[in-house]
């Protein structure tokens, strides 16, 4: 695992509430949606914001990316492929801790 992904993971764990939504599918959806938007922003692309869900992911991603840029100077020098790789590893780490190996016993309850 890239040490840079672990740095970002530590930041997200401490800062971001979206990784801790109520059920495993909410968490997975948020992680995938926000990290995808984050990758696009970091790569200088314009993410889609057509649906309310898109705009919500983008709102969270914008703040996260702004903090990444100010807190982790190396990110400005990373090329698109590196960003893709580090952010995908970040997503894996988040899924591993907050979904796959989470000890929260309510995560898979079918009702809210």
């Amino acid at each position, binding site marked *: 695992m890239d040490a840079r992904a672990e740095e970002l993971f530590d930041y997200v*764990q*401490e800062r971001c*509430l*979206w990784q*801790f*939504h*109520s*059920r495993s599918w*909410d968490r997975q959806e948020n992680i995938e949606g926000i990290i995808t938007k984050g990758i696009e922003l970091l790569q200088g692309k314009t993410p889609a914001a057509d649906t*309310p*869900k898109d*705009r*919500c992911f*983008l*709102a*969270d991603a*914008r*703040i996260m990316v702004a903090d990444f840029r100010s807190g982790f100077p190396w990110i400005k020098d990373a090329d698109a492929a590196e960003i893709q790789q580090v952010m995908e590893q970040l997503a894996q780490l988040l899924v*591993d*801790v*907050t979904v796959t*190996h*989470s*000890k*929260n*016993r*309510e995560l898979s309850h079918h009702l*809210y």
Partner: protein
Amino acid sequence: MPMILLDCDKDIPERQRHIYLKAPGESTKDFLPIANVATIPGTLSERGCAFCGAKLVIGGVVKDAIQMIHGPVGCAYDTWHTKRYPSDNGHVPLKYVWSTDMKESHIVFGGEKRLEQSINEAFDAMPHMKRMFLYTTCPTALIGDDVKAVSKKVMQERPDVDIFTVECPGFSGVSQSKGHHVLNIGWVDQKVGSVEPEIKSPYTINFIGDYNIQGDTQLLQTYWDRLGIQVIAHFTGNANYDELRSMHRAKLSVVNCARSAGYIANELKKRYGIPRLDIDTWGFNYMAEGIRKVCAFFGIEERGEALIAEEYAKWKPKLDWYKERLKGKKMAIWTGGPRLWHWTKSVEDDMGIEVVAMSSKFGHEEDFEKVVARGREGTYYIDDANELEFFEILENIKPDIIFTGPRVGELVKKLHIPYINGHAYHNGPYMGFQGFVNMARDIYNATHSPLLGLAATDIRRTAKAKLALKEVA
């Protein structure tokens, strides 16, 4: 061994699974206190009941509804104005309490007639109020009173009134958390979608999980007004009954207290496609971040930045004055659940305070995931702590200040440790920029007051007193 068995718990070793001491390098996939489970017989729990979670926390905040409590008068009295939520219509939720005042004979012969009479009496006595929350309690649920049938009959006879029934007796869950759940789901099932709001702005939100404690909602409302954002419904601070029926029309659900109201945000997402955005509203850094996110959703970032700049200019110097004087203070947070994770980093970042122990009465494991991720190493994380555990932890951590409720607060006062009301505040509001300065001021006053130190001194043992006593003898 990070899960801790305290000395006072040697006879109830099951408590070990509820107490965690965070060590370096650990994450929530390694250790997590178990939570939202039945209290172990023999411990002195500080929890409230499920009915209390529905009435005191959420329903009772609504400012234009009669809160009819079908049960003994104690259930009504004990959930009345112990939490300070004012309202802009003369503080109705704090002024009035309603109960069917069930006695033994009603338990024996049934309470439905008494309930019907009480509902009609209440509407007759307060003809300007046309909305009602109707709650069952343990005894009326046990005898099987059909409150839904009674409310239906009254609504047929009085077509201008609307009644929401909350069937959540105290025994129905392990803590007040069950009441939050029942009310959330009941409301979205029975009432959301039954009123159409007047849309006044292209930017509409539901603000969920804020109960206007000492004016929190009203303070935040000034931000939404300045940003041009219409709050379709506050769930439920300073809220009208009918605005809560129109939650389906908001474009975004902004969630503060995810524990008491995450359910309705999830259901609004599932049923109406309204996305859920969780934010923190206590703390400068967090509040600014929350405003930025909401504004980013609507594409009005520049308005958000202007508001944040204005608020920082006005309040940050004041916060920094307190931060200088609070740096290094040790704090314990013993509240319901979410305030642990809302506060632990915000008091550290914005005030320089270290949170050394946190206890949750009704938090779920989700809340512990959040707080352990945010909290410090070497800090205790406790689920449903009991009185003896509090004393032992205090001995271990020696905090300078404790945020907790008045009940536990009275205990810690006897140890001459200052406490601040973590549920209803001392001199709030505490949310937002101004609110966090209020919170810092209350902590400063509590930790710098000489009173508790003086109270700890037994004046009979001073040299002067000894001499005086000797002379008298």
